[in-house]
């Protein structure tokens, strides 16, 4: 009896021990909601919450939404975000609960402070993922005092600018068209103004910028080198705020505020060169010729919080570069001076215009299906086009008869996308964050269309009315781009986090379909000693190319799709890194990578690199590229002095075995810069004064120069026809000369003053303080030598360089209200 009772007690105890956790574990609750800025209502992306004891946590997604599934119980949750005061909430969770938290700004203006975020930074499972806080963008001195998103990205390790001072992004050995730059999830094709001196992104409209260059989240695809995810402000839900600024080159305005408080808000930003405004005024006072160039950007967004479960966003961007030239003339004469009836009066007008830019519109809908399942649906329209027009008209009147002749030439190229996508965030447990979704893009590529209209009218009768098509007007490429993805960020124990994912894409064009299965995986192991180890692999595919005229961004650069003969570009990247954040206010990271690219395109030797699409497939060749490197990033993220040091040691080369480039031999990539060093320091003296300094150094890229004169032999030379090319400048291989290193120092000073209705900020900055003549273009020149009598004695070789950006001071004023 005793034994039976004892057995029952033991069984009961055993069952209790076993069952109780199961009972408790099964009763899980989900805490979800939005984290936002207390003063504006702006959602905070990447804000975190951490449970005090278990250190279980979550971060907000791109729409400020978080979800955390944990066992029911009482907890202390700490909500935090960079530049904001932490907030601790004690919650007794017995069922699914929605908590929206508003954080108050704390040290928002103190400089860079990287926060623990899951999508980027040390805490993230992804390698090579960097968040660029807005304050860094605004305070970093760049050209003409214009804060620039892409110029700050160039200071990150592994990221280079192409030409000194221009905005091109060359990430880990990839070209500028290999970066997917998203504006609220919509790709932007042309990201430059003024041939690349400025980017199209207005910092006033930007909320967050994240760069991925190593292991890529599965939700991204379509480019092989980097993802730049730019999110714009939703609009202040509480109060109306704005800013007005005037600088050396441009003026800007920003306004945001509620239409219905906490429900409906707007955000508007505008920027334009001064010549937008005073150009037409000057024209009014000019006779004859008139020319003008300007660019402008317009951003707008409407945010509607229908309920806790539904939010809508309507966004638009429109930007343009415009170059115009007009000329008018008139006169009269007698073609027979003896006969006044032969008087002829005439007038002529010439108009030339070049316009290029993007237009983007998107509608997004956030829906919370349940506390664990969040969805975002986006439909978007995206267009980039370039139009060149030249026209001439002449009017003559003789004996009362009017003759008009008009000729107008149009050149147009562009790309237009309609897209729809759905993204889901599913968080079944604290250990798992599953993202999955799908996207469809319908591309229309018009690489080149040129036509002319010739019209002559005499005595109001049409004599000639003809339209010429210089290119095939029906030559349009269509592409269907479909992708699905899934990834799971899950924890194994306390130290190990793994993020496996897959991105499957399909591209259909010209009757041919390309499939690409792109596995992605990254893992993070965190030790107790503040050391984190990461490793990752990513495969990427790209279906569009930019036919570029190389060194600067030209409006005639063309976006073209892959074709039945040109295959997709693919890349495989392996990366690993070690990170340390045990020193308060400091972060250290050391990453290495190896990247192989296939089917990259390059113009064949001797090819004219104007972006004409006529037979472009035959003027390029597909080949391979390899890039490897080591990147060091040291950041000071707290205190009055903040900043970072970024160093990159890298090597990148290309190989086109078929023989049409460099005779089939490998050669260094044009932007193969072995060393790059960027140091950025921001110091805040007090509430009024802060200074910033950036020093950049990079060893030179490569260029191709002739190394000697050599005689050549044409097949018909033996018959004596020597009128062409008996000698040539001999090039032994492509990119055979390394340009000298470049370096420069930029300084900036900000003076803040509180005003009655806001704050004024004066900025004085100097670009290239010590006027270093960094080379933008390098070319060989043959000089003539003469003796003391002025007789020609021979030629000598000189290597000339052109520097475009010497020392450039600037002054700007901004009023924030």
């Amino acid at each position, binding site marked *: 009896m005793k034994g039976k009772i004892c057995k029952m007690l033991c069984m009961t105890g055993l069952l209790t021990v076993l069952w109780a956790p199961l009972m408790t574990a099964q009763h899980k609750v989900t805490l979800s909601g939005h984290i936002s800025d207390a003063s504006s209502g702006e959602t905070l992306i990447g804000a975190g919450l951490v449970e005090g004891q278990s250190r279980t946590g979550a971060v907000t997604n791109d729409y400020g939404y978080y979800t955390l599934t944990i066992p029911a119980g009482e907890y202390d949750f700490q909500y935090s975000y960079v530049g904001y005061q932490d907030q601790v909430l004690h919650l007794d969770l017995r069922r699914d609960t929605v908590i929206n938290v508003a954080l108050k700004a704390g040290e928002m203006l103190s400089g860079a402070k990287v926060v623990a975020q899951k999508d980027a930074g040390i805490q993230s499972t992804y390698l090579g993922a960097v968040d660029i806080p807005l304050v860094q963008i605004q305070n970093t001195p760049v050209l003409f005092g214009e804060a620039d998103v892409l110029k700050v990205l160039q200071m990150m390790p592994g990221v280079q600018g192409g030409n000194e001072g221009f905005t091109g992004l060359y990430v880990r050995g990839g070209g500028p068209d290999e970066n997917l730059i998203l504006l609220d999830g919509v790709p932007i094709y042309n990201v430059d103004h003024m041939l690349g001196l400025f980017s199209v992104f207005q910092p006033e409209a930007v909320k967050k910028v994240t760069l991925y260059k190593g292991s890529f989240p599965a939700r991204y695809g379509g480019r092989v080198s980097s993802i730049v995810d730019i999110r714009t402000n939703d609009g202040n839900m509480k109060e109306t705020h704005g800013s007005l600024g005037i600088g050396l080159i441009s003026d800007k305005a920003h306004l945001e505020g509620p239409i219905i408080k906490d429900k409906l808000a707007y955000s508007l930003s505008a920027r334009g060169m001064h010549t937008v405004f005073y150009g037409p005024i000057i024209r009014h006072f000019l006779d004859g010729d008139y020319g003008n160039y300007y660019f402008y950007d317009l951003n707008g967004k409407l945010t509607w919080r229908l309920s806790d479960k539904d939010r809508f966003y309507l966004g638009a961007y429109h930007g343009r570069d415009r170059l115009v030239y007009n000329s008018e003339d008139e006169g009269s004469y007698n073609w027979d001076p003896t006969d006044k009836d032969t008087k002829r009066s005439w007038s002529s007008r010439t108009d030339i215009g070049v316009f290029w830019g993007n237009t983007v519109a998107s509608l997004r809908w956030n829906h919370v299906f349940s506390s664990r399942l969040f969805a975002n649906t986006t439909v978007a329209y995206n267009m980039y086009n370039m139009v060149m027009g030249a026209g001439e008209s002449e009017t003559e009147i003789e004996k009362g008869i009017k003759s008009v002749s008009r*000729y107008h030439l149009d050149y147009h190229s562009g790309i237009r996308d309609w897209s729809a996508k759905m993204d889901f965030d599913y968080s079944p447990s604290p250990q798992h964050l599953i993202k999955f979704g799908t996207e469809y893009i319908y591309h229309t590529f018009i690489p080149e269309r040129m036509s002319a209209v010739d019209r002559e009218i005499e005595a109001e009768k049409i004599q000639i009315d003809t339209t010429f098509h210089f290119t095939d007007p029906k030559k349009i490429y269509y592409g269907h781009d479909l992708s699905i993805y899934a990834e799971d960020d899950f924890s194994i124990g306390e130290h190990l986090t793994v993020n496996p994912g897959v991105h499957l894409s399909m591209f259909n064009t010209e009757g041919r379909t390309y499939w690409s299965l792109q596995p992605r995986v990254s893992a993070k192991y965190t030790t107790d000693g503040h050391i984190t180890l990461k490793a990752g692999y990513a495969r990427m595919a790209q279906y569009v190319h930019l036919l570029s005229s190389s060194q600067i961004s030209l409006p005639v650069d063309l976006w073209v799709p892959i074709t039945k003969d040109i295959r997709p570009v693919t890349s495989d990247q392996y990366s690993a890194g070690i990170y340390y954040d045990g020193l308060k206010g400091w972060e250290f990271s050391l990453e290495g990578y190896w990247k192989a690219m296939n089917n990259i395109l390059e113009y064949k030797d001797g090819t004219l690199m104007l972006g004409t699409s006529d037979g472009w497939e035959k003027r390029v060749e597909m080949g391979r590229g390899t890039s490897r490197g080591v990147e060091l990033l040291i950041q000071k993220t707290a205190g009055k002095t903040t900043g970072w040091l970024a160093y990159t040691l890298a090597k990148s080369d290309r190989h086109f075995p078929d023989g049409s480039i460099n005779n089939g031999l490998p050669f260094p990539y044009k932007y193969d810069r072995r060393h790059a060093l960027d140091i950025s320091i921001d110091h805040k003296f007090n509430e009024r004064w802060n200074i910033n300094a950036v020093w950049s150094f990079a060893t030179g890229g490569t260029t191709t120069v002739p190394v000697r004169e050599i005689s050549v032999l044409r097949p018909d030379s033996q018959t004596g026809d020597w009128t062409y090319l008996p000698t040539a400048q001999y090039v032994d291989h492509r990119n055979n000369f390394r340009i000298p290193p470049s370096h420069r120092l930029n300084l900036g000073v900000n003076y803040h003053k509180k005003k009655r209705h806001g704050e004024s900020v004066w900025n004085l900055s100097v670009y290239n303080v010590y006027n270093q003549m960094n080379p933008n273009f390098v070319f060989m020149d043959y000089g003539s030598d003469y003796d003391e009598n002025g007789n020609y004695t021979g030629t000598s070789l000189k290597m000339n360089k052109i520097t475009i950006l010497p020392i450039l001071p600037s002054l700007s004023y901004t009023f924030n209200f």
Partner: protein
Amino acid sequence: MIAVAALGLLASCENTIRYEYDRNDGQITVLSQMYTSETEHTVFLSMSYPDRVDSLPGATVVCWVNGEKFVAEEQPVPMEEYYDPGFYYETRSDQVVLRRRHQLFTEYCFSAQLRPGDEVRVEASKGSLKAWAEVTVPQPATLVRVDTSRVVRTHSYADIDGTDTYEAAYMEMAVTVRDIPGEDNYFVLSGSHLTEGEFRRFDESGAVDSTAYYRSEDRELDYWTFHDTILEDGYSAGEASSLLDELLATNQMHCFSDKEFRDGEAVVRPYFDADYFTWRDYNYYWICPGTHEGDLHSTFTLYLRTISRDFYNYLRALNNMETYGYDVTPIIEPTSLPNNVTGGFGLVSVGADQSLTFDLGSRHIVHDPSQSLYY
């Protein structure tokens, strides 16, 4: 005002980067394009320096064909000709320098019959400098068939004022080429026109007083392709239907590969000027002036030359360099020239020929004795 000043600062600053080179760093350049259809071969030698090219007289040039040695003889510099095609303009900065080809090359000639499969080695040396190249004569592709027809084609051209058209007559040749299987092959399709004859001058008694021989050969004749993708080999068609076409290269060297008909047959269509196949009714008085009559005979020969890959790449590089827009940097990627010479620079090649000759007939020419001599 500040903005204007700032923009003014954008005016580029040009200065010099230190670039050192040895002005006396000379290397031998060996150039020779030989064919199996010829027995007289020329090797062109020159000295290449970083900043100039000079001829190379007094060198030793030896050729081996399957181990058999042939010594090439240096050719004397010719006297002035009444029409000297030797001039060309060499532009250096603002200095225009007239150069003669004989200041750039020294010619060395030898006689040998070359056959497919032969191993050919060319050696050039002078003093301590020595350069050589070894090539194997390729097997020739087969010129299966040539059909001809005289056609009239319409050309269009475009300029800023619009487009216009004109017509021209051509001899279309449908050339069937059979590829050599199992390998990548490269070809040149070319044509040559030969007119030769004998002219006689009579004395008062009607006897032949003197005889003059005339020979005129136009080689590597140009031809249209009219969008023949094989013959164009990736280059532009050459018809300026687009303004931008004027800047694009055409296939002036007439080289192509078997990429589009690997191991099979293809029909390619060159269009030669119909005038080459027509005896024109114009005064032939300028041929052997001072004679009374003569007989001319013309032929047209079509060559299908099988060449090496190196020579194919060399011709394409030359083609790129001669493009209208080649000097427009930085939007033209510089071209690297293939080089198969060891110890120096240049390219030595031997092409295997297949040819077809069209007999264009003869014409009896009678000179008008009242015509004065004309040079």
